[in-house]
């Protein structure tokens, strides 16, 4: 059996770059369910927190639970849950405190891995900053068990 080691980049971040990256705003997103494969009509619970960012820097935050297609065809997108969280709403509690969201998942479309396209589900957060920057993160999950052994 061959042991394959990951091929790490030879370039190392300079001390300045590393410090700068550590100081950049970040979004923490975590599922509260034990597994990332969920059945239709089940509760999806997750929490998010904003780190290393001040309230004055934030314009608004978009939170969505969505499906999208991947593959040969053009992308289709469908929104199950969409929330536009304003700066005032974010300021109501400390930014680094966990904010919990829960939603009942729909019965379809189920996650699917076909030959021409795939259907993927995810939770996506986009943080819009005052200076025009957008920071986004997403956490995929599997709806149903069509092509996944649970």
């Amino acid at each position: 059996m061959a042991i394959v080691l990951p091929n790490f980049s030879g370039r190392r971040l300079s001390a300045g770059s590393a410090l700068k990256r550590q100081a950049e705003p970040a979004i923490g997103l975590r599922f509260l369910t034990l597994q990332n494969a969920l059945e239709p009509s089940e509760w999806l619970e997750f929490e998010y927190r904003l780190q290393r960012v001040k309230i004055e820097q934030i314009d608004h935050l978009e939170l969505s639970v969505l499906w999208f297609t991947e593959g040969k065809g053009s992308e289709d997108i469908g929104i199950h849950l969409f929330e536009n969280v304003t700066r005032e709403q974010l300021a109501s509690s400390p930014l680094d405190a966990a904010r919990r969201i829960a939603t009942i998942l729909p019965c379809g479309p189920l996650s699917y891995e076909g030959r021409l396209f795939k259907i993927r589900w995810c939770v996506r957060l986009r943080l819009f900053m005052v200076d025009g920057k957008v920071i986004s993160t997403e956490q995929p999950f599997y709806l149903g068990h069509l092509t996944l052994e649970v």
Partner: protein
Amino acid sequence: MPKWVRLWGKKRGTRMSGWWVVGSVSEAAFFGALFLLGIASLTIVVTWQLFWPSSTILSIGFGFWLMVIASCSFILIGISAFILQISQTLASPEMRSALVDRAKREHQRRAVGLADKQEAKNLPSLENLMDSPGVRLAYRLELQRGETTPLILSALFVVAWNSMLAILFVLAIQNHLSGRSDWFLTVLLVPFTAVSFFATRWFFRLFRKQSGIGPTAVEISDLPLLPGREYQVYLCQYGKAVFDQLQLSLVTFEESTFQQGTDVRTERVEVARIVSQIEGPDGPPFIADREKPLELDCRFCLPDDIMHSFQGQHNAVTWKIFVEGSARKWPSFCRTFPVVVYPRGAL
């Protein structure tokens, strides 16, 4: 924002190098400029006519109307593309999708008066499938639309071509009889007659293929189909034929529409096939007579782990019942009847 804004981007797969805002702003600026150009040119053309009607420059005529049409098209293209580009730049894809969904639901609620049916999104409608009750089972399925399109098109072409050929024949004969022989027209009639012969033969072949074997009726015990359930299917084949082979299958297709250069293409692949169990008379051969059509009872058992029907804007999963067979003295045939599979809990 990057330190140096690149004017030229490079396409790397589906990504572009450079800052996307530069591209979006440039595109919006281009269409904004096109809109302004249209406004300015239309204003000049119209005001010139209003204030200097006797002037020979831009006088009302072909050139004037051409300028008006060109200016109007600049205005329409410019404003619509500008608004689209601005909305794409200002709103995220999720926000746009949420807004479109909300607008659709609102429109549906107002138009039909239905309650907000969130669950039925991206599932094909059942209205067209369930409006025809069956004789033996609950629903009679509709034959796939478009299967008779080649026959209709060929009939139209043959009628038009043969009409034209008949007129040309009459003209050629008239010329010959009046002593003013048009040999170019006479020679031209030879290839035209050949085209007419092959087109007519093509039409009759299609006609024989479509109408030789009588119509097929398929009925199903319930709709929509659900994973893990069993369904009865009744097949009635009219006409007179002896089938050496006849098979009913439930087939899944994936369809994807994508842009290739300036073309929009659709690709379709078969991903699953469930062959039915025939419970009717022993066979083959199966015999259909004019007085006594062939009647078959079949059964489909859908597995638990099948993908349901899905209808996106560019991608789709479709389900169809295929009736395939080969009859003696007739070409093999295949008729399809669309059905819909819903995920469990969608009803």
